[in-house]
């Protein structure tokens, strides 16, 4: 399988995520789209790692694959942490305004 | 003399003494005391400067007039200050002016006088620094620092539109200085390595910076605009009338008497030696601007109804001539400028004192509302007339010598500029005599009716000024001897 397909897929997912962030107004959904972006990146990293494994890079840098996969692991870790905080914030806001619409947030502007 | 056994030099004294005195002044609560304190310290500074004039000869007393300390070692900037002829002249002017100003305004009471006089003395320190700096970074420091106290003085104690006016002035000059800063850094980056650093800010290094003609051309403007704003040269002058109008008179005296000289000084000290060929390239433009400014300002002065604005515009006209004369690069012209820097300082301070008196007594500065002061306050009138005559450069007043030489220099540079600039001589007579006639002659009216003649302290100051006016009008030679070295050194850059 050529790497470009993976890249294509990952980038596609990433951009879909971006489009989601741009178009949706429900903060939860926006947040989910961001998660989608992260996953796209994860996929990309893994794919790259396997690409390197197949290439000369593997000789010079033995644990090139595991580096990337560990990185992905950490991304997931961070994502988890972020989610907890993020949802907490959203919930807090919902408590105060009974809405999760981001366009509702415009007390701060100019 | 051996530098070892000199423990302090004149430039240091001239800077540190006012600085310390000023800082001390902030903590003197009692108004009377702080006034006295300011006056005394100013007088001491004057004393120092007088003594320094005795030791002015740098061939003999070099180490009394020059000193340098490590400062930003690794940037190649040292705190080096010194007095050459021009430095002596202008520090002397500064030292002379402040006591006069303090005495003249001794009767005026300011809210939080301690702050006021503290700031005034700080200004003096800053000015001294500007006139003594031999390291361009140090120069820039003082250049900015001299303005800050003035900013506070004007916006705190000035007239009703003071805040905007002063703010305009500040932003205007600040912009100019920042442009200059870029220029300074650029030149610095093209200087030869110095001890501990790969470039140097010292005057000599800056003078010998290696720059391509194109670089010099735009750098010239970066510097010149900064100085032109300070002087001010047409068309950068519009801050001046407003500021002079709004600032408290004593500050206005500092501004117009000394601070404008900063610009002229800086042009002579930095632009001429650093960018000689750019000067050769642009001299026509600059002189044209200056000459236009002279005529323009004179014409406007004719139409001014507010005494302060009147003086402001007449000052712009005079400054224009100085700026033009600098760029003629003739010995006679430059000597004229040197002389005129001093003369103009003296005369305009006198002008302001008179204006201040009139405003104090009559409560107005409107020329149209005044009249007939002459027989209410004859002494004042006599002084005013003398100063006014100096203002129009009548022979045997100091201004004549300066203007005569500057015009001569200008003539040798270009006849037509001189011819046009000469018109300002006539216009000067027109507006000055108009003012004198409208304000002092004719019948007294309700406003000037209860005008009293001047008090002793003012009489004293004005007398001193008048003495200066005639003394230097008849015996200008000492000044030329003093500034000879500077002028000739600078001219060597154009050989």
């Amino acid at each position, binding site marked *: 399988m050529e790497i470009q397909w993976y890249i294509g897929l990952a980038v596609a997912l990433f951009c879909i995520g971006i489009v989601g962030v741009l178009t949706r107004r429900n903060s939860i959904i926006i947040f989910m789209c961001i998660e989608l972006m992260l996953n796209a990146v994860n996929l990309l990293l*893994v794919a790259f790692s396997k690409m390197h494994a197949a290439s000369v890079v593997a000789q010079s840098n033995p644990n090139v694959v595991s580096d990337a996969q560990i990185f992905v692991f950490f991304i997931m870790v961070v994502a988890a942490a972020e989610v907890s*905080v993020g949802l907490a914030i959203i*919930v807090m806001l919902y408590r105060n305004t009974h809405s999760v619409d981001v366009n509702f947030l415009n007390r701060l502007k100019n | 003399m051996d530098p070892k056994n000199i423990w302090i030099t004149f430039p240091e004294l001239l800077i540190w003494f006012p600085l310390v005195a000023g800082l001390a002044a902030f903590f003197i609560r009692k108004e009377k005391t702080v006034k006295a304190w300011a006056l005394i310290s100013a007088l001491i500074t004057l004393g120092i400067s007088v003594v320094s004039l005795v030791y002015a000869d740098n061939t003999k007393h070099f180490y009394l007039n020059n000193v340098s300390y490590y400062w930003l070692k690794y940037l190649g900037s040292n705190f080096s200050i010194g007095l050459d002829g021009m430095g002596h002249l202008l520090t002397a002017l500064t030292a002379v002016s402040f006591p006069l100003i303090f005495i003249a305004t001794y009767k005026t009471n300011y809210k939080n006088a301690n702050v006021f006089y503290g700031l005034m003395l700080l200004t003096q320190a800053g000015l001294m620094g500007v006139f003594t700096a031999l390291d361009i970074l140090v120069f820039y420091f003082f250049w900015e620092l001299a303005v800050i106290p003035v900013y506070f003085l004007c916006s705190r104690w000035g007239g009703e539109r003071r805040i905007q006016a002063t703010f305009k002035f500040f932003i205007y000059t600040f912009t100019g200085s920042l442009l200059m800063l870029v220029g300074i850094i650029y030149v610095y980056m093209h200087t030869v390595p110095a001890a501990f650093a790969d470039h140097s800010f010292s005057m000599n290094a800056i003078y010998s910076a290696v720059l391509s003609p194109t670089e010099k051309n735009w750098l010239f403007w970066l510097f010149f605009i900064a100085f032109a704003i300070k002087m001010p040269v047409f068309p950068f002058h519009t801050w001046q009338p407003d500021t002079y109008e709004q600032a408290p008179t004593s500050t206005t005296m500092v501004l117009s008497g000394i601070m404008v000289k900063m610009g002229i000084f800086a042009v002579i000290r930095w632009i001429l030696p650093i960018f000689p060929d750019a000067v050769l390239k642009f001299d026509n433009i600059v002189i044209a601007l200056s000459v236009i400014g002279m005529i323009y300002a004179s014409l406007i002065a004719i139409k001014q109804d507010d005494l302060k604005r009147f003086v402001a515009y007449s000052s712009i006209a005079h400054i224009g001539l100085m700026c033009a004369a600098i760029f003629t690069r003739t010995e006679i012209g430059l000597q004229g400028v040197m002389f005129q820097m001093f003369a103009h300082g003296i005369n305009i301070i006198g002008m302001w004192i008179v204006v201040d008196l009139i405003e104090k007594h009559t409560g107005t500065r409107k020329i149209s509302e005044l009249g007939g002061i002459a027989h209410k306050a004859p002494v004042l009138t006599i002084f005013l007339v003398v100063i006014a005559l100096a203002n129009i450069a009548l022979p045997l007043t100091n201004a004549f010598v300066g203007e005569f030489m500057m015009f001569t220099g200008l003539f040798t540079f270009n006849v037509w500029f001189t011819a046009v600039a000469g018109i300002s001589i006539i216009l000067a007579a027109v507006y000055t005599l108009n003012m004198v006639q409208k304000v002092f002659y004719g019948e007294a009216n309700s406003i000037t009716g209860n005008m009293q003649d001047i008090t002793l302290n003012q009489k004293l100051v004005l007398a001193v000024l008048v003495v200066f006016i005639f003394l230097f009008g008849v015996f200008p030679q000492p000044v030329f001897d003093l500034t000879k070295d500077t002028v000739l050194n600078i001219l060597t850059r154009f050989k």
Partner: protein
Amino acid sequence: MSITEILFWGLTILALFSAIMVVASKSPVHSILFLIVVFFAISGHYILLNAQFLAIVNIIVYAGAIMVLFLFVVMLMNLNAASEPKKNRLLQFAGLISGGCLFLVLIAAITKSSVATEMVQMGSGNDGLIKNLGMVLFKDYVIPFEISSVLFLSAMIGAVVIGKKTQ
């Protein structure tokens, strides 16, 4: 066309479709469910790439924990399609366009690159197995591993600080 490729394309299409659905679907609940599908598809890719550990973690952490959390919150707020307010058409359109442009730009950039056509090692290669990763993680990546604890602590505190009822 080998089985791997078929799987690849299948998963890809699935992932893309459900990703689009995540963005497009009205109700938040549906979005969440579609997102889970995406995660499963991605995990499938991981398996194809022989990164079992990540595949498992992805399922557990994302599809399991995180998404459930989301679902939970959404249920809690009982947001339904109606609660999605009127959209700003223009902004959406702009978003769509710019997102698309970004996609094109990135693709264009990558296809220019030399590595674009390099082959990816499928199925084989055991670096992605738990054993090796574990070794690496606790040998070379001990510092980040420890440090991430700080991250969790702060996240926890955050949840507490924000979640705690104030009287």
